[in-house]
Protein backbone atom coordinates (compact mmCIF):
# COMPACT_ATOMS: atom_id res chain seq x y z
CA UNK A 1 0.00 0.00 0.00
CA UNK A 2 2.81 2.41 0.90
CA UNK A 3 4.58 1.49 -2.33
CA UNK A 4 1.43 2.26 -4.31
CA UNK A 5 1.17 5.63 -2.57
CA UNK A 6 4.81 6.37 -3.42
CA UNK A 7 4.07 5.62 -7.06
CA UNK A 8 1.00 7.81 -6.97
CA UNK A 9 3.02 10.63 -5.38
CA UNK A 10 5.79 10.36 -7.97
CA UNK A 11 3.29 10.47 -10.83
CA UNK A 12 1.29 13.29 -9.24
CA UNK A 13 4.46 15.40 -9.23
CA UNK A 14 4.85 15.18 -13.01
CA UNK A 15 2.06 17.68 -13.80
CA UNK A 16 3.57 20.02 -11.19
CA UNK A 17 6.82 19.92 -13.20
CA UNK A 18 4.86 21.03 -16.25
CA UNK A 19 3.29 23.99 -14.49
CA UNK A 20 6.17 26.40 -15.15
CA UNK A 21 6.12 25.90 -18.92
CA UNK A 22 2.34 25.97 -19.25
CA UNK A 23 1.89 29.07 -17.06
CA UNK A 24 4.77 30.90 -18.76
CA UNK A 25 3.03 30.45 -22.11
CA UNK A 26 -0.66 30.68 -21.20
CA UNK A 27 -1.76 30.84 -17.57
CA UNK A 28 -5.39 30.14 -18.50
CA UNK A 29 -4.30 26.56 -19.27
CA UNK A 30 -2.81 26.06 -15.79
CA UNK A 31 -5.51 23.58 -14.76
CA UNK A 32 -5.57 21.36 -17.83
CA UNK A 33 -4.15 18.05 -16.54
CA UNK A 34 -3.32 16.64 -19.96
CA UNK A 35 -1.27 19.66 -20.98
CA UNK A 36 0.48 19.73 -17.60
CA UNK A 37 1.29 16.01 -17.79
CA UNK A 38 2.72 16.27 -21.32
CA UNK A 39 4.80 19.32 -20.43
CA UNK A 40 5.87 17.72 -17.14
CA UNK A 41 7.01 14.49 -18.80
CA UNK A 42 8.94 16.40 -21.48
CA UNK A 43 10.68 18.59 -18.88
CA UNK A 44 11.39 15.57 -16.66
CA UNK A 45 12.91 13.66 -19.60
CA UNK A 46 15.12 16.61 -20.55
CA UNK A 47 16.29 17.10 -16.96
CA UNK A 48 17.03 13.40 -16.38
CA UNK A 49 18.95 13.23 -19.67
CA UNK A 50 20.93 16.36 -18.76
CA UNK A 51 21.80 14.94 -15.31
CA UNK A 52 22.95 11.69 -16.95
CA UNK A 53 25.22 13.56 -19.36
CA UNK A 54 26.63 15.57 -16.45
CA UNK A 55 27.20 12.28 -14.56
CA UNK A 56 25.05 13.49 -11.66
CA UNK A 57 23.35 10.49 -10.03
CA UNK A 58 19.56 10.68 -9.99
CA UNK A 59 17.66 10.80 -6.75
CA UNK A 60 14.11 11.96 -6.05
CA UNK A 61 15.49 15.09 -4.37
CA UNK A 62 18.04 15.97 -7.06
CA UNK A 63 15.38 15.70 -9.75
CA UNK A 64 12.46 17.21 -7.86
CA UNK A 65 14.04 20.23 -6.17
CA UNK A 66 14.92 22.34 -9.25
CA UNK A 67 11.68 21.52 -11.06
CA UNK A 68 9.47 22.32 -8.06
CA UNK A 69 11.44 25.53 -7.47
CA UNK A 70 10.89 26.63 -11.07
CA UNK A 71 7.21 25.74 -10.85
CA UNK A 72 6.88 27.73 -7.62
CA UNK A 73 8.01 30.85 -9.50
CA UNK A 74 4.81 30.64 -11.53
CA UNK A 75 2.55 30.69 -8.45
CA UNK A 76 2.46 34.52 -8.06
CA UNK A 77 1.44 34.80 -11.71
CA UNK A 78 -1.33 32.28 -11.13
CA UNK A 79 -2.48 34.26 -8.09
CA UNK A 80 -2.47 37.57 -9.96
CA UNK A 81 -4.54 36.15 -12.80
CA UNK A 82 -6.81 33.90 -10.76
CA UNK A 83 -10.03 35.54 -11.95
CA UNK A 84 -9.08 35.17 -15.61
CA UNK A 85 -7.97 31.59 -15.03
CA UNK A 86 -11.16 30.84 -13.13
CA UNK A 87 -13.27 32.14 -16.00
CA UNK A 88 -11.31 30.05 -18.53
CA UNK A 89 -11.48 26.93 -16.39
CA UNK A 90 -15.11 27.48 -15.51
CA UNK A 91 -17.92 25.03 -15.90
CA UNK A 92 -18.81 23.91 -19.41
CA UNK A 93 -22.49 23.78 -18.60
CA UNK A 94 -22.46 20.17 -19.76
CA UNK A 95 -24.04 17.59 -17.49
CA UNK A 96 -21.81 14.99 -15.85
CA UNK A 97 -23.51 12.24 -17.88
CA UNK A 98 -21.69 13.51 -20.95
CA UNK A 99 -18.58 11.90 -19.49
CA UNK A 100 -20.27 8.49 -19.18
CA UNK A 101 -19.45 7.17 -22.70
CA UNK A 102 -15.77 7.95 -22.26
CA UNK A 103 -15.89 6.49 -18.75
CA UNK A 104 -17.13 3.17 -20.15
CA UNK A 105 -14.23 3.06 -22.58
CA UNK A 106 -11.74 3.78 -19.80
CA UNK A 107 -13.36 1.12 -17.57
CA UNK A 108 -12.76 -1.61 -20.17
CA UNK A 109 -9.12 -0.52 -20.62
CA UNK A 110 -8.76 -0.71 -16.83
CA UNK A 111 -10.08 -4.27 -16.89
CA UNK A 112 -7.64 -5.19 -19.68
CA UNK A 113 -4.80 -3.66 -17.66
CA UNK A 114 -5.56 -5.30 -14.33
CA UNK A 115 -6.18 -8.73 -15.86
CA UNK A 116 -3.02 -8.45 -18.01
CA UNK A 117 -5.02 -9.10 -21.17
CA UNK A 118 -3.25 -6.59 -23.43
CA UNK A 119 0.28 -6.22 -22.14
CA UNK A 120 2.78 -5.14 -24.75
CA UNK A 121 5.63 -7.58 -25.34
CA UNK A 122 7.85 -4.58 -26.15
CA UNK A 123 7.32 -3.46 -22.57
CA UNK A 124 8.58 -6.83 -21.34
CA UNK A 125 11.52 -6.89 -23.77
CA UNK A 126 12.84 -3.34 -23.72
CA UNK A 127 10.76 -0.45 -22.36
CA UNK A 128 10.60 -2.08 -18.91
CA UNK A 129 14.18 -3.44 -18.81
CA UNK A 130 15.60 -0.08 -19.91
CA UNK A 131 13.62 1.79 -17.24
CA UNK A 132 14.64 -0.68 -14.57
CA UNK A 133 18.31 -0.51 -15.56
CA UNK A 134 18.27 3.31 -15.67
CA UNK A 135 16.75 3.44 -12.19
CA UNK A 136 19.33 0.99 -10.80
CA UNK A 137 22.14 2.88 -12.54
CA UNK A 138 20.73 6.24 -11.33
CA UNK A 139 21.15 7.62 -14.84
CA UNK A 140 20.80 6.67 -18.49
CA UNK A 141 23.09 3.65 -18.74
CA UNK A 142 24.73 4.25 -22.12
CA UNK A 143 27.05 1.25 -21.63
CA UNK A 144 23.97 -0.97 -21.22
CA UNK A 145 22.33 0.55 -24.30
CA UNK A 146 25.43 0.14 -26.45
CA UNK A 147 26.14 -3.45 -25.29
CA UNK A 148 26.17 -5.77 -28.28
CA UNK A 149 23.67 -8.16 -26.67
CA UNK A 150 21.14 -5.36 -26.23
CA UNK A 151 20.94 -4.17 -29.82
CA UNK A 152 17.38 -5.50 -30.14
CA UNK A 153 16.36 -3.19 -27.30
CA UNK A 154 16.46 -0.27 -29.77
CA UNK A 155 19.18 1.65 -27.92
CA UNK A 156 18.51 5.07 -29.49
CA UNK A 157 14.72 5.08 -29.20
CA UNK A 158 13.63 8.40 -27.65
CA UNK A 159 14.08 8.34 -23.89
CA UNK A 160 10.86 9.78 -22.41
CA UNK A 161 9.03 6.53 -21.64
CA UNK A 162 11.84 4.66 -19.85
CA UNK A 163 12.76 7.87 -18.05
CA UNK A 164 9.24 8.40 -16.69
CA UNK A 165 9.08 4.74 -15.60
CA UNK A 166 12.55 5.11 -14.05
CA UNK A 167 11.41 8.27 -12.26
CA UNK A 168 8.64 6.45 -10.42
CA UNK A 169 11.07 3.56 -9.73
CA UNK A 170 13.39 5.96 -7.90
CA UNK A 171 10.62 6.45 -5.36
CA UNK A 172 9.25 2.98 -4.87
CA UNK A 173 11.45 0.50 -6.74
CA UNK A 174 10.64 -0.78 -10.19
CA UNK A 175 7.17 -2.20 -10.66
CA UNK A 176 6.18 -4.19 -13.72
CA UNK A 177 2.57 -3.41 -12.97
CA UNK A 178 2.65 0.38 -12.57
CA UNK A 179 3.17 1.24 -16.28
CA UNK A 180 0.41 -1.15 -17.33
CA UNK A 181 -2.04 0.07 -14.71
CA UNK A 182 -1.35 3.68 -15.68
CA UNK A 183 -2.58 3.09 -19.27
CA UNK A 184 -6.27 3.84 -18.51
CA UNK A 185 -5.24 7.21 -17.05
CA UNK A 186 -3.60 8.18 -20.33
CA UNK A 187 -6.70 7.20 -22.29
CA UNK A 188 -8.76 9.24 -19.83
CA UNK A 189 -6.39 12.21 -20.14
CA UNK A 190 -6.66 12.11 -23.95
CA UNK A 191 -10.45 12.11 -23.87
CA UNK A 192 -10.60 14.63 -21.01
CA UNK A 193 -8.56 17.19 -22.97
CA UNK A 194 -10.79 16.60 -26.00
CA UNK A 195 -13.85 17.24 -23.81
CA UNK A 196 -12.40 20.16 -21.84
CA UNK A 197 -10.79 22.11 -24.68
CA UNK A 198 -13.65 21.34 -27.04
CA UNK A 199 -16.38 22.48 -24.70
CA UNK A 200 -16.47 26.06 -26.00
CA UNK A 201 -16.36 25.00 -29.64
CA UNK A 202 -18.76 22.08 -29.98
CA UNK A 203 -22.42 21.69 -29.17
CA UNK A 204 -23.00 19.64 -26.00
CA UNK A 205 -24.38 16.41 -27.43
CA UNK A 206 -21.78 16.35 -30.24
CA UNK A 207 -18.97 17.02 -27.76
CA UNK A 208 -20.20 14.32 -25.36
CA UNK A 209 -20.62 11.81 -28.18
CA UNK A 210 -17.36 12.57 -29.94
CA UNK A 211 -15.16 12.69 -26.83
CA UNK A 212 -16.81 9.43 -25.69
CA UNK A 213 -16.31 7.84 -29.10
CA UNK A 214 -12.69 9.00 -29.05
CA UNK A 215 -12.07 7.40 -25.64
CA UNK A 216 -13.80 4.18 -26.67
CA UNK A 217 -11.98 3.99 -30.03
CA UNK A 218 -8.60 4.76 -28.49
CA UNK A 219 -9.11 2.30 -25.65
CA UNK A 220 -10.37 -0.38 -28.01
CA UNK A 221 -7.42 0.00 -30.40
CA UNK A 222 -4.88 -0.03 -27.56
CA UNK A 223 -6.45 -3.17 -26.07
CA UNK A 224 -6.74 -5.22 -29.28
CA UNK A 225 -3.21 -4.28 -30.35
CA UNK A 226 -1.76 -5.36 -26.96
CA UNK A 227 -0.26 -1.94 -26.36
CA UNK A 228 -0.58 -1.51 -22.59
CA UNK A 229 2.81 -0.69 -21.12
CA UNK A 230 4.06 0.35 -24.55
CA UNK A 231 5.03 3.87 -25.56
CA UNK A 232 1.93 4.20 -27.79
CA UNK A 233 -0.15 4.88 -24.68
CA UNK A 234 1.96 7.97 -23.99
CA UNK A 235 2.38 8.91 -27.63
CA UNK A 236 -1.29 9.05 -28.51
CA UNK A 237 -2.01 11.00 -25.32
CA UNK A 238 0.55 13.70 -26.16
CA UNK A 239 -0.63 13.76 -29.78
CA UNK A 240 -4.17 14.32 -28.52
CA UNK A 241 -3.05 17.25 -26.36
CA UNK A 242 -1.35 18.93 -29.33
CA UNK A 243 -4.33 18.33 -31.63
CA UNK A 244 -6.81 19.50 -28.99
CA UNK A 245 -4.96 22.82 -28.70
CA UNK A 246 -4.61 23.27 -32.45
CA UNK A 247 -8.22 22.28 -33.15
CA UNK A 248 -10.11 24.04 -30.37
CA UNK A 249 -8.02 27.07 -29.38
CA UNK A 250 -8.04 30.21 -31.53
CA UNK A 251 -4.90 30.72 -33.59
CA UNK A 252 -2.30 32.66 -31.60
CA UNK A 253 1.41 32.65 -30.82
CA UNK A 254 0.66 31.34 -27.32
CA UNK A 255 -1.39 28.45 -28.65
CA UNK A 256 1.34 27.51 -31.10
CA UNK A 257 4.03 27.62 -28.41
CA UNK A 258 1.97 25.49 -26.05
CA UNK A 259 1.29 23.02 -28.86
CA UNK A 260 5.03 22.93 -29.55
CA UNK A 261 5.63 21.86 -25.92
CA UNK A 262 3.16 18.99 -26.52
CA UNK A 263 5.06 18.13 -29.71
CA UNK A 264 8.28 18.06 -27.67
CA UNK A 265 6.74 15.27 -25.60
CA UNK A 266 5.69 13.55 -28.84
CA UNK A 267 9.19 13.53 -30.40
CA UNK A 268 10.77 12.40 -27.12
CA UNK A 269 8.38 9.44 -26.86
CA UNK A 270 8.77 7.48 -30.10
CA UNK A 271 10.71 7.64 -33.38
CA UNK A 272 7.52 8.11 -35.38
CA UNK A 273 6.65 11.05 -33.14
CA UNK A 274 9.04 13.10 -35.28
CA UNK A 275 6.91 12.44 -38.36
CA UNK A 276 3.77 13.33 -36.43
CA UNK A 277 5.30 16.58 -35.18
CA UNK A 278 6.65 17.71 -38.54
CA UNK A 279 3.49 16.85 -40.47
CA UNK A 280 1.26 18.50 -37.87
CA UNK A 281 3.42 21.63 -37.73
CA UNK A 282 3.39 21.86 -41.53
CA UNK A 283 -0.37 21.30 -41.78
CA UNK A 284 -1.14 24.00 -39.21
CA UNK A 285 1.25 26.48 -40.83
CA UNK A 286 -0.52 26.60 -44.18
CA UNK A 287 -0.68 30.27 -45.09
CA UNK A 288 -0.26 32.27 -48.33
CA UNK A 289 2.34 34.69 -46.95
CA UNK A 290 5.71 32.88 -46.65
CA UNK A 291 6.93 34.94 -43.66
CA UNK A 292 3.88 34.00 -41.61
CA UNK A 293 3.95 30.41 -42.85
CA UNK A 294 7.56 29.81 -41.88
CA UNK A 295 7.23 31.74 -38.63
CA UNK A 296 4.30 29.60 -37.61
CA UNK A 297 6.06 26.40 -38.67
CA UNK A 298 9.16 27.17 -36.62
CA UNK A 299 7.05 28.23 -33.64
CA UNK A 300 5.41 24.81 -33.73
CA UNK A 301 8.31 22.63 -34.81
CA UNK A 302 11.42 24.55 -33.74
CA UNK A 303 11.80 23.36 -30.15
CA UNK A 304 10.74 19.73 -30.87
CA UNK A 305 13.20 19.66 -33.77
CA UNK A 306 15.99 21.02 -31.56
CA UNK A 307 15.28 18.36 -28.91
CA UNK A 308 15.23 15.63 -31.52
CA UNK A 309 18.55 16.78 -33.00
CA UNK A 310 19.95 16.91 -29.46
CA UNK A 311 18.89 13.32 -28.76
CA UNK A 312 20.32 12.11 -32.10
CA UNK A 313 23.60 13.90 -31.29
CA UNK A 314 23.70 12.21 -27.87
CA UNK A 315 23.08 8.87 -29.59
CA UNK A 316 25.91 9.59 -32.01
CA UNK A 317 28.42 10.51 -29.31
CA UNK A 318 27.40 7.64 -27.03
CA UNK A 319 27.59 5.10 -29.85
CA UNK A 320 23.96 4.00 -29.66
CA UNK A 321 22.59 5.23 -33.00
CA UNK A 322 20.36 2.67 -34.66
CA UNK A 323 16.89 3.85 -35.66
CA UNK A 324 18.21 7.35 -36.43
CA UNK A 325 21.27 6.14 -38.34
CA UNK A 326 21.59 7.00 -42.02
CA UNK A 327 21.22 3.35 -43.01
CA UNK A 328 18.07 1.72 -41.69
CA UNK A 329 18.73 -1.18 -39.28
CA UNK A 330 16.23 -3.17 -41.35
CA UNK A 331 18.13 -2.73 -44.62
CA UNK A 332 18.26 -0.26 -47.51
CA UNK A 333 15.23 1.42 -49.04
CA UNK A 334 13.61 -0.80 -51.66
CA UNK A 335 10.31 -0.85 -53.53
CA UNK A 336 10.40 -4.62 -54.03
CA UNK A 337 7.73 -5.22 -51.41
CA UNK A 338 5.72 -2.02 -51.98
CA UNK A 339 2.43 -3.65 -53.11
CA UNK A 340 2.61 -6.14 -50.23
CA UNK A 341 3.43 -3.38 -47.74
CA UNK A 342 0.54 -1.17 -48.88
CA UNK A 343 -1.97 -4.01 -48.74
CA UNK A 344 -0.72 -5.27 -45.35
CA UNK A 345 -0.64 -1.82 -43.77
CA UNK A 346 -4.20 -1.21 -45.01
CA UNK A 347 -5.23 -4.58 -43.56
CA UNK A 348 -3.57 -3.67 -40.25
CA UNK A 349 -6.23 -0.98 -39.83
CA UNK A 350 -8.89 -3.67 -39.47
CA UNK A 351 -8.49 -3.76 -35.65
CA UNK A 352 -10.48 -7.01 -35.48
CA UNK A 353 -13.62 -4.97 -36.09
CA UNK A 354 -13.99 -4.60 -39.85
CA UNK A 355 -12.28 -1.17 -39.83
CA UNK A 356 -15.03 0.19 -37.58
CA UNK A 357 -12.76 2.70 -35.75
CA UNK A 358 -12.19 4.44 -39.10
CA UNK A 359 -15.75 4.19 -40.36
CA UNK A 360 -17.11 5.48 -37.05
CA UNK A 361 -15.05 8.68 -37.27
CA UNK A 362 -15.42 9.10 -41.04
CA UNK A 363 -19.18 8.77 -40.53
CA UNK A 364 -19.14 11.68 -38.07
CA UNK A 365 -17.30 13.76 -40.69
CA UNK A 366 -19.71 12.73 -43.46
CA UNK A 367 -22.74 13.65 -41.35
CA UNK A 368 -21.27 17.01 -40.31
CA UNK A 369 -22.45 20.35 -41.72
CA UNK A 370 -18.91 21.23 -42.88
CA UNK A 371 -17.03 18.06 -43.96
CA UNK A 372 -14.55 20.22 -45.92
CA UNK A 373 -13.28 21.66 -42.62
CA UNK A 374 -11.74 18.29 -41.87
CA UNK A 375 -9.63 18.30 -45.06
CA UNK A 376 -6.45 19.18 -43.17
CA UNK A 377 -6.91 16.19 -40.85
CA UNK A 378 -7.77 13.80 -43.68
CA UNK A 379 -4.63 14.95 -45.51
CA UNK A 380 -2.61 14.41 -42.32
CA UNK A 381 -4.01 10.88 -41.96
CA UNK A 382 -3.10 10.08 -45.55
CA UNK A 383 0.41 11.55 -45.27
CA UNK A 384 0.99 9.67 -42.03
CA UNK A 385 -0.18 6.49 -43.75
CA UNK A 386 2.46 7.11 -46.45
CA UNK A 387 5.04 7.55 -43.69
CA UNK A 388 4.03 4.20 -42.19
CA UNK A 389 4.40 2.57 -45.62
CA UNK A 390 7.83 4.23 -45.99
CA UNK A 391 8.91 2.68 -42.67
CA UNK A 392 8.29 -0.82 -44.02
CA UNK A 393 9.84 -0.52 -47.50
CA UNK A 394 13.30 -1.20 -46.15
CA UNK A 395 15.29 -4.40 -46.32
CA UNK A 396 15.18 -7.41 -48.59
CA UNK A 397 13.24 -9.64 -46.18
CA UNK A 398 9.48 -10.10 -46.31
CA UNK A 399 8.06 -7.48 -43.92
CA UNK A 400 4.71 -9.29 -43.38
CA UNK A 401 5.33 -10.34 -39.77
CA UNK A 402 6.92 -7.00 -38.91
CA UNK A 403 3.84 -5.17 -40.23
CA UNK A 404 1.52 -7.57 -38.43
CA UNK A 405 2.98 -6.81 -35.00
CA UNK A 406 3.61 -3.08 -35.32
CA UNK A 407 1.47 -1.43 -38.02
CA UNK A 408 -1.82 -1.47 -36.05
CA UNK A 409 -0.07 0.59 -33.35
CA UNK A 410 1.51 2.97 -35.86
CA UNK A 411 -1.93 3.64 -37.33
CA UNK A 412 -3.20 5.06 -34.04
CA UNK A 413 -1.95 8.52 -35.06
CA UNK A 414 -4.22 8.64 -38.16
CA UNK A 415 -7.09 7.50 -35.91
CA UNK A 416 -6.40 10.51 -33.68
CA UNK A 417 -6.22 12.81 -36.73
CA UNK A 418 -9.65 11.60 -37.83
CA UNK A 419 -11.18 12.13 -34.37
CA UNK A 420 -10.03 15.74 -34.32
CA UNK A 421 -10.98 16.10 -37.99
CA UNK A 422 -14.52 15.12 -36.99
CA UNK A 423 -14.43 17.79 -34.29
CA UNK A 424 -13.23 20.37 -36.81
CA UNK A 425 -16.08 19.45 -39.15
CA UNK A 426 -18.58 20.11 -36.35
CA UNK A 427 -16.86 23.26 -35.09
CA UNK A 428 -18.70 26.35 -36.38
CA UNK A 429 -15.58 28.52 -36.16
CA UNK A 430 -13.15 26.05 -37.78
CA UNK A 431 -13.83 27.39 -41.26
CA UNK A 432 -12.89 30.90 -40.06
CA UNK A 433 -9.54 29.60 -38.83
CA UNK A 434 -8.50 27.76 -41.96
CA UNK A 435 -6.13 29.84 -43.98
Amino acid at each position, binding site marked *: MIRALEYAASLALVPVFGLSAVVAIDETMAFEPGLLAAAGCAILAVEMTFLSLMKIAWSPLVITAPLVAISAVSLPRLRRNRLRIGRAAGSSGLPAWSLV*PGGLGVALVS*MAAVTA*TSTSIDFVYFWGPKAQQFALHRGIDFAYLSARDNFLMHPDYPPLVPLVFAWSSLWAGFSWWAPILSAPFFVALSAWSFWRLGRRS*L*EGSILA*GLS*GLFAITLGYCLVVT*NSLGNAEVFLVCWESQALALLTFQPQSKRRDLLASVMLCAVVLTKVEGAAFAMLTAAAFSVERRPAIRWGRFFRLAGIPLALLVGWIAIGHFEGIREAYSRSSPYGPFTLVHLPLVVSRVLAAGNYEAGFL*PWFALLGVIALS*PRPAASFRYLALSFLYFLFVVFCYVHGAGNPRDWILVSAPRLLLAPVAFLAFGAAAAWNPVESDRSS
Partner: protein
Amino acid sequence: MRSSSPPRRQAATVAWMAACGLVLLAAEARHLRARGRFTFRRAATILSRTGATPRTSEAAILFLDAIGRQIPAGATVALLRPGYEGYQDVEDAYMAAAGRLPNCRVVPSNIRAANPPEYLASFESPAPDARYLLVSRPPGGFLYRLR
Protein backbone atom coordinates in the same frame (compact mmCIF):
# COMPACT_ATOMS: atom_id res chain seq x y z
CA MET B 1 -21.02 25.84 -26.63
CA ARG B 2 -22.39 26.61 -30.03
CA SER B 3 -25.38 25.32 -31.86
CA SER B 4 -25.71 26.06 -35.55
CA SER B 5 -26.43 22.72 -37.22
CA PRO B 6 -29.92 21.39 -37.93
CA PRO B 7 -31.28 19.30 -35.04
CA ARG B 8 -32.03 16.36 -37.31
CA ARG B 9 -28.42 16.17 -38.54
CA GLN B 10 -27.22 16.43 -34.96
CA ALA B 11 -29.56 13.71 -33.77
CA ALA B 12 -28.46 11.42 -36.61
CA THR B 13 -24.81 12.02 -35.74
CA VAL B 14 -25.35 11.36 -32.05
CA ALA B 15 -27.21 8.15 -32.93
CA TRP B 16 -24.35 7.11 -35.24
CA MET B 17 -21.74 7.80 -32.55
CA ALA B 18 -23.76 5.94 -29.95
CA ALA B 19 -24.21 2.92 -32.24
CA CYS B 20 -20.52 2.80 -33.20
CA GLY B 21 -19.45 3.32 -29.59
CA LEU B 22 -21.68 0.50 -28.39
CA VAL B 23 -20.43 -1.88 -31.11
CA LEU B 24 -16.81 -1.06 -30.24
CA LEU B 25 -17.49 -1.55 -26.53
CA ALA B 26 -19.15 -4.88 -27.28
CA ALA B 27 -16.21 -5.92 -29.49
CA GLU B 28 -13.77 -4.97 -26.74
CA ALA B 29 -15.81 -6.85 -24.12
CA ARG B 30 -15.83 -9.89 -26.43
CA HIS B 31 -12.06 -9.61 -26.87
CA LEU B 32 -11.59 -9.52 -23.09
CA ARG B 33 -14.08 -12.33 -22.46
CA ALA B 34 -12.30 -14.59 -24.96
CA ARG B 35 -9.22 -14.38 -22.71
CA GLY B 36 -10.94 -14.99 -19.38
CA ARG B 37 -13.86 -13.99 -17.20
CA PHE B 38 -14.72 -10.36 -16.45
CA THR B 39 -13.02 -9.26 -13.29
CA PHE B 40 -11.09 -6.39 -11.77
CA ARG B 41 -8.92 -8.80 -9.80
CA ARG B 42 -5.23 -8.45 -10.57
CA ALA B 43 -3.70 -11.28 -12.60
CA ALA B 44 -0.79 -13.37 -11.31
CA THR B 45 1.66 -11.85 -13.79
CA ILE B 46 1.69 -9.07 -16.38
CA LEU B 47 1.35 -11.62 -19.21
CA SER B 48 -1.24 -13.94 -17.67
CA ARG B 49 -3.81 -13.34 -20.42
CA THR B 50 -1.72 -11.78 -23.18
CA GLY B 51 -0.76 -13.26 -26.53
CA ALA B 52 -1.23 -16.66 -28.10
CA THR B 53 0.34 -18.67 -25.26
CA PRO B 54 -0.47 -16.84 -22.02
CA ARG B 55 0.04 -19.91 -19.79
CA THR B 56 3.57 -20.34 -21.09
CA SER B 57 4.31 -16.64 -20.62
CA GLU B 58 2.93 -16.71 -17.07
CA ALA B 59 4.96 -19.82 -16.21
CA ALA B 60 8.10 -18.21 -17.66
CA ILE B 61 7.69 -15.08 -15.55
CA LEU B 62 7.04 -17.07 -12.36
CA PHE B 63 10.05 -19.26 -13.14
CA LEU B 64 12.30 -16.24 -13.70
CA ASP B 65 11.08 -14.61 -10.49
CA ALA B 66 11.77 -17.84 -8.57
CA ILE B 67 15.33 -18.26 -9.87
CA GLY B 68 15.95 -14.54 -9.36
CA ARG B 69 15.64 -15.23 -5.62
CA GLN B 70 18.18 -18.06 -5.80
CA ILE B 71 20.96 -16.68 -8.00
CA PRO B 72 23.45 -14.42 -6.18
CA ALA B 73 23.61 -10.80 -7.34
CA GLY B 74 26.19 -10.17 -10.05
CA ALA B 75 26.35 -13.81 -11.22
CA THR B 76 26.18 -14.53 -14.95
CA VAL B 77 23.12 -16.45 -16.09
CA ALA B 78 21.62 -17.62 -19.37
CA LEU B 79 18.01 -18.61 -19.96
CA LEU B 80 17.20 -21.24 -22.52
CA ARG B 81 14.15 -23.21 -23.59
CA PRO B 82 15.15 -26.57 -25.04
CA GLY B 83 13.63 -27.05 -28.46
CA TYR B 84 13.36 -23.31 -29.02
CA GLU B 85 16.90 -22.30 -29.86
CA GLY B 86 16.50 -20.34 -33.09
CA TYR B 87 17.96 -16.86 -33.36
CA GLN B 88 14.74 -15.06 -32.41
CA ASP B 89 14.00 -17.51 -29.55
CA VAL B 90 17.44 -16.87 -28.05
CA GLU B 91 16.98 -13.10 -28.32
CA ASP B 92 13.49 -13.21 -26.81
CA ALA B 93 14.68 -15.36 -23.90
CA TYR B 94 17.65 -13.05 -23.37
CA MET B 95 15.53 -9.88 -23.26
CA ALA B 96 12.86 -11.43 -21.03
CA ALA B 97 15.52 -12.64 -18.57
CA ALA B 98 17.41 -9.33 -18.69
CA GLY B 99 14.26 -7.59 -17.50
CA ARG B 100 13.29 -10.07 -14.80
CA LEU B 101 16.80 -10.64 -13.39
CA PRO B 102 18.12 -7.08 -13.02
CA ASN B 103 20.65 -8.00 -10.33
CA CYS B 104 22.32 -10.68 -12.45
CA ARG B 105 24.42 -10.35 -15.58
CA VAL B 106 22.22 -12.03 -18.15
CA VAL B 107 23.91 -13.37 -21.29
CA PRO B 108 22.36 -14.93 -24.41
CA SER B 109 22.17 -18.73 -24.18
CA ASN B 110 23.93 -19.26 -27.52
CA ILE B 111 27.28 -18.19 -26.05
CA ARG B 112 27.32 -20.93 -23.42
CA ALA B 113 29.52 -23.32 -25.42
CA ALA B 114 32.44 -20.92 -25.69
CA ASN B 115 31.89 -18.85 -22.58
CA PRO B 116 29.74 -20.74 -20.06
CA PRO B 117 27.77 -18.54 -17.65
CA GLU B 118 27.81 -19.37 -13.93
CA TYR B 119 24.14 -20.33 -13.98
CA LEU B 120 21.95 -21.91 -16.61
CA ALA B 121 18.18 -21.58 -16.30
CA SER B 122 16.29 -24.05 -18.42
CA PHE B 123 12.60 -23.30 -18.89
CA GLU B 124 10.13 -26.21 -19.09
CA SER B 125 12.59 -29.02 -19.94
CA PRO B 126 15.89 -30.14 -18.44
CA ALA B 127 19.10 -29.21 -20.27
CA PRO B 128 21.62 -31.83 -19.27
CA ASP B 129 25.18 -30.54 -19.61
CA ALA B 130 28.18 -32.26 -18.03
CA ARG B 131 29.65 -28.90 -17.03
CA TYR B 132 26.59 -27.98 -14.96
CA LEU B 133 25.10 -29.29 -11.72
CA LEU B 134 21.35 -29.18 -11.11
CA VAL B 135 20.81 -26.97 -8.06
CA SER B 136 17.04 -26.59 -7.94
CA ARG B 137 13.78 -27.34 -9.72
CA PRO B 138 11.57 -24.32 -9.21
CA PRO B 139 8.10 -24.52 -10.79
CA GLY B 140 8.43 -24.16 -14.52
CA GLY B 141 12.02 -25.28 -15.03
CA PHE B 142 15.49 -26.23 -13.89
CA LEU B 143 18.36 -24.21 -12.49
CA TYR B 144 21.95 -25.36 -13.01
CA ARG B 145 25.25 -24.07 -11.66
CA LEU B 146 28.65 -24.38 -13.32
CA ARG B 147 30.63 -27.14 -11.58
